């Protein structure tokens, strides 16, 4: 049973304000969902995992790409010219002053 307090803790972690009654509602709903998804704990991957070709290599249990691992990084070169997107981005600032983004004090 997930508690109201636990929901509050999770909501705080996720930076979401959640009121008392919603905390209770969510506790029930998330409980029901966890009750369903917990069937995953009956799943035992060890026998089922595909074995690596090479005996000494680690099991292929994190192979997310279709063709295995490949480098998708690009070289750190040819940066976008400064100011190219500034006008459009600044237009979306909720609060700005002289092209600076205005935010709450942090220190």
């Amino acid at each position, binding site marked *: 049973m997930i508690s109201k307090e636990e929901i509050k803790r999770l909501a705080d972690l996720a930076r979401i304000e959640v009121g008392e009654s919603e905390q209770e509602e*969510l506790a029930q709903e998330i409980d*029901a969902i966890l009750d369903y998804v917990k069937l995953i704990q009956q799943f035992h991957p060890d026998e089922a995992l595909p074995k690596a070709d090479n005996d000494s290599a680690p099991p292929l249990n994190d192979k997310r790409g279709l063709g295995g691992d490949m480098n998708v990084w690009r070289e750190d070169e040819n940066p976008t010219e400064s100011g190219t997107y500034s006008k459009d981005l600044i237009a979306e600032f909720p609060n700005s002053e002289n092209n600076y983004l205005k935010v709450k004090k942090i220190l």
Partner: protein
Amino acid sequence: MKIENLTIKKARELLDKKEISTKELIEYYLKNIEAKNKDLNAYLEVYEDVLGQAEEAQKIIDSGNAKDLTGIPLAIKDNILIKGRKASAASKILENYTATYDATVIEKLKKEGVVFLGRTNMDEFAMGGSTENSSFGVTKNPHDTARVAGGSSGGSAVAVAADMALGALGSDTGGSVREPASFCGVIGFKPTYGVVSRYGLMAMGSSLDCIGPIAKTVGDTEIIFDNIKGKDKMDSTSITPPTPLTLRGEPNKKIGVPYHILDQGGISPEVKKNFEESIKKMQDLGYEIQDIKLENIDKSLAVYYIIMPAEVSSNMARFDGVKYGLREEGANLLEVYKNTRGLGFGKEVRRRIILGTYVLSSGYYDAYYAKAMSAREVLRDEFKKAFEQVDAILTPTTPAPAWKIGEKSNPLEAYLADIFTVTANIVGVPAISLPSGFTPNNLPLGVQLMAPHMREDILFKIGKSFLKENS
């Protein structure tokens, strides 16, 4: 010239033969939107410059440079960015956000000379299967307006089904293109993960998200797909789609049916009957049906509802009221975060973020998320093995037809509708939903075909044959 029952293919012919102008074509759809959208709520916004876009397209046609989609009116889901236009993902947190760049798919469609009619309604941030989770009202099913259109690409499916667009783009993370297409009686297509760039699609579940077309014919979805696919340097998960020469040329005649999944509860008798009829139809078309076993498919929904919320909780973190979107007041920075997200996000979004935070938190990570990731690999492996025996896998698209608006009283009930669609996203394979008939009270039903990675061609081929479309 009466414009009715058009497909993208037919419209292309008529435009190129100058039997209709883009203006006439677009005006036809604008008229339908005017007549129907107030009630159906498919579009959140119809663009004011639509006729101007039509004019530009006409110039291209007149100069003899028309491409596949020049002048073709499409509807775009509200989570795909078009520079300078609003994109809200049907959320209050982005209600007044203007996109600062084009999604790659939009860039490609702009080069084609497409006419963008407007942005369509959806479940907020693509979280849902009915469009009931939109912050701007539900989208109604044109076949029965007391019922849901499906989701999360409900608006896109209805735009096509109610003749308010010739085609639409949606996004599919767990079935969000296929399910509404099935509920509305049109075709919904999900490509292989990575074949269509996600750059400019607001991320929901980054390892699951796919952009896909919705249209009236398989041929039309193929045309749209061909013009949005491609490796993209802006999306590091994108891959090069196979060119026709690299595809195997076998007959592709074996369809696998995992009959055992029909034994689970919650599948309506109408779906079962229609599915049996669809199997017979495939046999009559010359396909060999094979009973296949997908051992761990009963875990797919659990795998999905662990991995997806986890990725959601991460992807939604960017909406913090700082650089763009809604910013609520607060005494300090922490309060600004909490108030902005508490008020800006709807119920289902908050629910999934919190669920995702839970499964990723220490103490629970191994029990849920790590297990789900292992199960994911096993499911991929099972599908690979199944595709060694058959060319495609057939299932119903959904366990039941469109439900009544407000009928599903708890979230888990709604999640169970995804039971047949989530696996394609978990495993990354392409899938298509084909309209397969109606229930006795005229609600559309659909069947789903899945093919191996990069074998969209198999889906198009079988789909066209099932719907008797001549190539």
